[in-house]
């Protein structure tokens, strides 16, 4: 794993006021890269900075934890005591496993959020630009991205609604396809209604309006969303124009009845109307939802959808975890193969070179040997080398493959011990990669 390490903090280890003070801008990244590279020219560094995490992935050489903490301290003008207690640290396999979970959104505040994949991709791209991602971190990030893509595309982890506003938008997307020509109306300017309206504003609707008894309150609510304010006097006119209605008034009685909507439907030219009634007591008469073309959902309907979605995600998280473990296992197998490949080549090269030397000495000492005998002798020596080396090479491979889930579990440190022992025993030259 070549000194792979992750040092950072995230939403589980640090409060937001600590995380926001360590938010990386591009200039911070360049400065940190210079600080680390000046002291450790062979070091690799990738910084993953999002609103929920700041993580420094390093490899290639051992960088003291204090050096990284001091660099962060210098960069953000903070004392180490302000953030160091919130830092977590993982090494080697644990660091790789952490990144795979992060890229697959399993470590996110909301499992299944899709932004993290782009953020991991951007972190890699920025480090490649700064020439700070090398032979360890670049393939690690690429494989973590592949795992993340697999999780998001093969499981239902990113589906479903994550809140009442999300459920309302999900229902709207099922009725309407193109929101650029749609009119979203909020009846009431309460906090909850505006939260749902904000969810709809992200769909870039054609028109957005807010109705309230108090026109000033309606204006205050509508303006930030680029909407228009109306009073309750305009209710019927707005109900005719609207495609989606979010209702959240504090009225004690329904303000829209079935009879009223039935009267309005011909004037609406029977266009579908989606009503999200989150008021308690309800603003729309329940029977209004029985009209053809009217889709009425109240708070209970939305909450049920959120509950279903949460339950569905639990199953998806198990499936996602299995996918991540499979990708991680493949990565470890690839990594260990990459680590022992040159050593195995060097063992055979050394054995074959010794055999060749001995063969040439023997042939020089026995000039009476004919070509056929020489050939047989050479073959026999090669076979001897292969047979002698087979057992140690097999043991080395076995120790490294024991990371795989289909093999007997073993301490990963054994693999490094084997590699180190083989390098010592066979006196392999300095060009051969050393055990980390």
């Amino acid at each position: 794993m070549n000194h792979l390490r992750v040092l950072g903090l995230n939403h589980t280890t640090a409060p937001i006021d600590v995380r926001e003070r360590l938010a990386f801008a591009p200039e911070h990244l360049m400065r940190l890269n210079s600080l680390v590279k000046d002291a450790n020219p062979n070091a690799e560094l990738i910084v993953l900075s999002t609103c929920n995490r700041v993580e420094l992935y390093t490899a290639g050489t051992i960088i003291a934890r204090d050096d990284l903490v001091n660099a962060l301290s210098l960069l953000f003008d903070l004392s180490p005591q302000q953030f160091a207690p919130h830092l977590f640290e993982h090494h080697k396999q644990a660091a790789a496993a952490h990144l795979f979970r992060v890229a697959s959104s399993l470590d996110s505040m909301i499992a299944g959020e899709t932004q993290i994949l782009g953020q991991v991709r951007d972190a890699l791209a920025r480090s490649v630009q700064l020439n700070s991602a090398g032979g360890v971190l670049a393939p690690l990030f690429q494989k973590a991205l592949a795992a993340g893509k697999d999780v998001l595309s093969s499981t239902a982890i990113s589906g479903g609604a994550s809140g009442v506003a999300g459920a309302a938008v999900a229902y709207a997307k099922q009725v309407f396809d193109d929101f650029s020509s749609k009119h979203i109306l909020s009846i009431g300017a309460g906090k909850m209604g505006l939260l749902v309206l904000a969810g709809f504003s992200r769909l870039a609707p054609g028109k957005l309006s807010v109705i309230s008894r108090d026109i000033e309150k309606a204006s205050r609510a509508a303006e930030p969303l680029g909407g228009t304010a109306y009073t309750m006097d305009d209710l019927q006119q707005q109900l005719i124009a609207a495609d989606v209605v979010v209702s959240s008034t504090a009225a004690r009685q329904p303000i829209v009845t079935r009879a009223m909507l039935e009267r309005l439907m011909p004037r609406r030219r029977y266009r579908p109307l989606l009503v999200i009634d989150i008021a308690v007591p309800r603003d729309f008469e329940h029977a209004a939802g029985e009209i053809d073309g009217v889709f009425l959902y109240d708070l209970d309907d939305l909450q049920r959808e959120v509950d279903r979605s949460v339950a569905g995600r639990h199953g998806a998280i198990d499936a996602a975890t299995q996918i991540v473990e499979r990708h991680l296992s493949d990565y470890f197998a690839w990594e260990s193969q990459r680590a022992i490949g040159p050593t195995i080549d060097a063992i055979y090269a050394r054995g074959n070179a010794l055999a060749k030397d001995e063969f040439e000495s023997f042939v020089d000492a026995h000039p009476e040997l004919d070509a056929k005998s020489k050939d047989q002798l050479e073959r026999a020596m090669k076979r001897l080398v292969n047979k002698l080396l087979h057992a140690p090479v097999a043991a080395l491979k076995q120790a490294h493959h024991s990371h795989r889930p289909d093999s007997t579990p073993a301490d990963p440190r054994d693999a490094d011990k084997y590699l180190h022992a083989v390098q010592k025993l066979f006196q392999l030259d300095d060009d051969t990669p050393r055990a980390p």
Partner: protein
Amino acid sequence: MPTLLQIALLLISAGLFAACAAAALLKDRGHSTNMVARGVWMCRGIAIALAILSLILHSADRGSFWPLEDNFDALVWLAVMLGIVVAYIQLRHPIGGLDLFAAPIVVLMLLAAAFFGSNLPRDYHLYSAWLTVHRVCSFGGVVMFAVAAATSTAWLISNDRLRRKQLAAARRVGSLEQLERVNYLMVTLGFAMLSVGLITGFGRLTAVPADERIQWLASPKITLAAVAWLVYALVLHAPINPVFRGKRVAQLSIGGFLLITGVVVAVQFNV
């Protein structure tokens, strides 16, 4: 007469389209993976290729590569065109429920070709450019109406699920607006083709003896086609008279396709 090989190819093709329908059903029940989705595309591609191969072999046997010359040819062409149109829609603007309702129509067409395609070879009395236009437009119209019927069925199911507040199940079928848009587009195209097909079809009157013309005009094929034309005219009326919006448009589209299916059967049995 189709050979055993041609029929075998059609049956394999029908089996693969049935597999697509089964995968769509799995997806509708919420059991779908990327592997199943890739499998559907593979099945669809192979099924279309096999049906086309069957058409080529059939044309080679007949000694004429002019399309739609007999019933076998016509039904396989219908199935292939429907398969291709559905594949195109799924590629450009995927609709969850389309395969579920379109694939069975393709399977039925292929099975009809395999079992009844050889019964009554069409005997066209009038070989002319008008007849070619008539055939191409009529068959093109049937394909469009089949897609419209599939999207309308999907619309009714999605609407029902939304009313029952089954969001996840409705999502697997497609959004109402998207389904309505595809339905309207397909009915518009199909209606234009059917209209041209009907007008050019009346050219056949010249080949019908004068004393049989009334009987010919009152034949099931012509009557059903004329009623279907009126039904689709009502569907196209929806933007002007919105009372027909939504559920009624979907029901009319399905009804229209049943009438068109009657026309295809009447053509098959020459009634």
